């Protein structure tokens, strides 16, 4: 979606949740689901519409790890850092992945293809280590398997 369309997305989200009690999180989810992040200009519009200050809305966005204030890459790899995954070698997988992508967590590759994010438990603790690639879970992942996934993503166009 083009960035100029963000106003439509935001007004649709606001309209949908105009009667939702405590509806700020649902509004923010709608916006991020559509755009991949919450544009800084949207913060003002949302705040005015629900009668809360820009600071308050910003405070909510920044409190939660899930919300992004920057446009992510075409693909998002979320890697679990939690204990069960660590017990099965997640740290090594993460190190190799960072080296392969040449980025750290919360960064996007220079070609804009892949964003890498840490995540704290996907609930696949009995088949660790686990990652989620564009929302699809992958369990019992090895460094080799991860390399293969990255190679595939690099040639793949995300239709989402």
């Amino acid at each position, binding site marked *: 979606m083009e960035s100029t369309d963000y106003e439509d997305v935001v007004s649709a989200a606001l309209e949908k949740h105009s009667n939702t009690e405590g509806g700020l999180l649902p509004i923010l989810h709608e916006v991020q689901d559509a755009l991949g992040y919450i544009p800084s200009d949207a913060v003002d519009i949302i705040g005015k519409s629900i009668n809360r200050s820009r600071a308050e809305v910003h405070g909510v966005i920044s409190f939660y790890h899930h919300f992004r204030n920057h446009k992510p890459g075409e693909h998002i790899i979320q890697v679990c850092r939690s204990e069960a995954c660590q017990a099965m070698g997640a740290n090594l997988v993460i190190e190799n992945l960072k080296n392969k992508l040449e980025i750290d967590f919360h960064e996007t590759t220079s070609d804009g293809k892949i964003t890498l994010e840490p995540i704290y438990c996907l*609930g696949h603790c009995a088949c660790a280590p686990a990652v989620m690639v564009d929302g699809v879970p992958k369990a019992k992942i090895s460094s080799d398997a991860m390399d293969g996934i990255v190679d595939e993503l690099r040639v793949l166009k995300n239709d989402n």
Partner: protein
Amino acid sequence: MTTKIYIPRDSSAIGLGSDLVADQVSRVARSINQDVEIVRNGSRGLIWMEPLLEVETESGRTGFANVDTADVEDLVKSNFSETVMHAKSVGLVNEIPYLKNQERLCFARNGVTDPISIEDYIENGGFKGLSSALELDARSIVDIVTESGLRGRGGAAFPTGIKWNTVLNCQSDQKYIVCNADEGDSGTFSDRMTMEGDPFALIEGMTIAAFAVHATKGYLYLRSEYPHAEVIFNKALEVARDKGYLGENIRGGERSFDIELRRAAGAYICGEETSLLESLEGKRGLVRAKPPLPAISGLFGQPTVVNNVITFSSVPFILANGASAYKNYGMGRSTGTLPIQLAGNIKRGGLVEKAFGVTLNELLYDFGGGSASGRPIRTVQIGGPLGAYIPEKDFDLKLDYETFAAAGAMIGHGGIVVYDETVNMASMARFAMEFCALESCGKCTPCRIGSTRGMETIDKIISGENRFENAELIETLCDTMLHGSLCALGGMIPYPVMSAIKHFPEDFCLEPHATMVAA
């Protein structure tokens, strides 16, 4: 003749390839004109066997474990012959000892049924608890739950009946039922499996709770890390509404109740009940001081029942079979069963529902089969990131809230993370502090500042800087966090840290040890 087969849609199974297997099965079946009906069931919890493909036969459902897309052609063309696919055949699924030796009350249907088929749910004993509740007044429901001895399965183990009674006794026009589905503890996935594999059980449990306290509105606060659970649970809500199990005048009675799913946003602290309520109100998830209790002044200031997924999904059995049927399981004040999750470095990882009283040894070796790596198990962490590390010498501990508390440990949400001998406990202790720093809501100083200072101090110990002085400092800091924090995050992170130092001082080079001499 149509062959009915089951391939799980549980997200761990998907992570291991079940979606690909299901696609491949229908493709191959179509290509040879074989009549196959695929049911996407939940998982049985035998995660180490996933994808576990089951086939309905005259003698019962037989299984094929760890099915790969490469196996599918032979499987389908042989019409799922156990002889042809001998290597992957596991025989009758209900006879697998891992499953047969469990006491499944909460998880009786998981993996058996199609999670979004309400007919399947009813055929397999669903809504019997609700039927009983429809005949009872609120007070009687609360009394039955109190009598059962059910305690909160989220971690705090507070008696559920007492909580419900407080809400029932409050006078208010609006009361709420809130289900805490922010299952953030590493090593736990029983909530996820319930929502993905048997969502109607949770809906039934929440509805009974609503009847018990005169609540009309419920929220499921679901973590954003569980997108598959969100899809399935939302679908189940639609079906339940459509069939009159939610909404106005439930089942033709006088009571009304509905549930809204709210997606969380990746903050571990929002699993703490007051922080969760703030988040539901559209705010930062800052912990509230207690009192007032959420039961008296909870969501939007109204009396609110906040319970975990497993607490609610334990309730239908109790209403259907009576308090004493539930109480017959368990030991001491830990009545009933606990869905235990075997995770991390374990050969047979998965879900084991057992009555309280089972020992760690039984779970880790009889069920779990030892470590996945084949190396000796060195320690387990129970109860998530805030749980103590338990050394091997204590593996004879019985799972019971009081026994664990006496040993300085906790059962929490029943997740057991297993580590083999390659684990470095100093780095696990550091991770505990790092995690606390990352997830602290920032409201109270011991947690907000203490976690960062703790991380720095453990770094100093690891690098050998004034090791013994810094170890003393950590102890004092942990004492401050333990007693001075507002909630369990800052208040319990000392458990993994101090238990790591206490049981594994050699990893911190705090005792004369080969590695220290070498250094």
